[in-house]
């Protein structure tokens, strides 16, 4: 009898572990599909998993997704997934945006728990308007909970709600002590300054900086729906953010190589016909040299300070591509 009871208990434990591994595998599949469906928002009902904690980790360009203490996790070295470090929720909003630098490099997937709230502070009205509009949705389940506030005292810390403070001015959150309403709230904060992005975590009434090596640069060309900026808002901390950005830079290297090949074909096309297109393609500081520079820069971009130069090169490629388009030539992207 004891033998059978032991067998049943052991089998139950094995089945639970297998089930958790299956669930993680299914989640990974859903995330893959959601990730490639650019500019879409999907709601994933996880009420069956609400008693479990999902974790998202990323180190050395390798992401990890799993259920805490259950089954096996899944690693992913390709897709950038910006998410809180740990999530216990009844639903997830999966949102995908393309990372264009200047051409499309990869899709970023943002995982937003249904019980997360994002508070925006600062005077960047254009971004606040854009962010509020893009996160709002007609369907209540796809509506990301955001609110613009003028002071930290307006934050309502509620148990079970993940709080994220977004300081677009850079000095509004950490300039003073943690307000009493936020003490022991485990709130996280991200601040955007001219010098870069900083990530903080509230811990026993103190703001603890997560990026000890200095602010992280925002590697993007700006504009609306800036995938890199949104990534910082939805990332748990500096390590998670930079690790996922590294995945994008890794891909940039290969995508740029493909565009270099395309540039050669465009050049060959205009070799005989000549004209303004040929002049544009063979000018000094031309498309070919810029693509080569970007590829080299993406290859060597491992640490924040070595990546900033890519912005200038990507901007140059964008300008040259626009010139090709204005002159009715075959454009690069």
């Amino acid at each position: 009898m004891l033998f059978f009871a032991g067998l049943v208990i052991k089998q139950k434990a094995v089945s639970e572990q297998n089930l958790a591994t299956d669930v993680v595998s299914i989640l990974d599949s859903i995330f893959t599909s959601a990730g490639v469906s650019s500019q879409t928002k999907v709601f994933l009902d996880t009420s069956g998993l609400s008693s479990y904690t999902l974790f998202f980790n990323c180190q050395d360009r390798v992401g990890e997704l799993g259920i805490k203490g259950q089954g096996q996790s899944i690693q992913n070295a390709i897709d950038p997934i910006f998410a809180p470090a740990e999530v216990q929720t009844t639903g997830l909003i999966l949102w995908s945006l393309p990372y264009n630098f200047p051409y499309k490099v990869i899709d970023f997937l943002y995982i937003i728990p249904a019980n997360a709230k994002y508070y925006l502070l600062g005077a960047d009205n254009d971004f606040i308007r854009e962010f509020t509009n893009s996160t709002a949705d007609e369907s209540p389940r796809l509506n990301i909970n955001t609110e613009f506030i003028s002071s930290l005292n307006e934050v309502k810390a509620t148990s079970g709600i993940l709080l994220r403070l977004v300081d677009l001015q850079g000095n509004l959150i950490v300039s003073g002590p943690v307000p009493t309403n936020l003490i022991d709230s485990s709130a996280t904060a991200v601040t955007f300054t001219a010098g870069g992005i900083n990530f903080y975590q509230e811990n026993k009434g103190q703001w603890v900086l997560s990026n000890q090596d200095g602010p992280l640069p925002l590697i993007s060309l700006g504009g609306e729906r800036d995938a890199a900026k949104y990534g910082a808002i939805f990332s748990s901390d500096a390590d998670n953010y930079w690790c996922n950005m590294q995945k994008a830079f890794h891909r940039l290297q290969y995508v740029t190589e493909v565009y270099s090949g395309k540039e050669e074909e465009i050049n060959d096309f205009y070799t005989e016909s000549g004209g303004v297109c040929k002049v544009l393609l063979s000018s000094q500081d031309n498309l070919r040299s810029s693509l080569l520079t970007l590829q080299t820069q993406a290859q060597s971009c491992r640490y924040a300070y070595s990546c900033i130069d890519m912005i200038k090169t990507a901007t140059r490629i964008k300008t040259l591509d626009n010139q090709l388009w204005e002159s009715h030539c075959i454009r690069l992207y």
Partner: protein
Amino acid sequence: MKRKAQARMTETIAVIFIFFILILFGLIFYARYSQSSFVQKQEELLAKEAIDSTTKALFLPELICSKGEAEPEDHCLDLMKLRTANETFRKYLTDYYFNIFSYARITVQEVYPDDRSWILYERIKTNATREEPTYFSVSLREETPDPVYGFGYIEVRVFS
């Protein structure tokens, strides 16, 4: 008395024998069930991998038809990029693209206006026992100042 004890002993041995026979049946049944569910699981995984790989291939930034800052054209492959991409995929197969497609072969077949094909990615498992092909129709854009569109399909064949 002695005979009675012998009879009881025989009875006990018979019960134990039947008990072990039942356990043996149970083990055989469980082993067969495990084997069939393992095969079924493998088939499910292969089908999942085929769908994942096809989805990824259709939206690869290395292949899609871009339109400047606008959204790329759906289910359209840029032939200029495609001709370079197969070389890039081959060059970085082990470093990078194997993590996306694993053991698979991705072929693009042009149906109209010409009949050409390109093997974009190929990593075949030597001792593969199963393969699952998936097909998806795509338009093929040849870049000229006024782009010319062809028609074809992409075949993603995964191995396990």
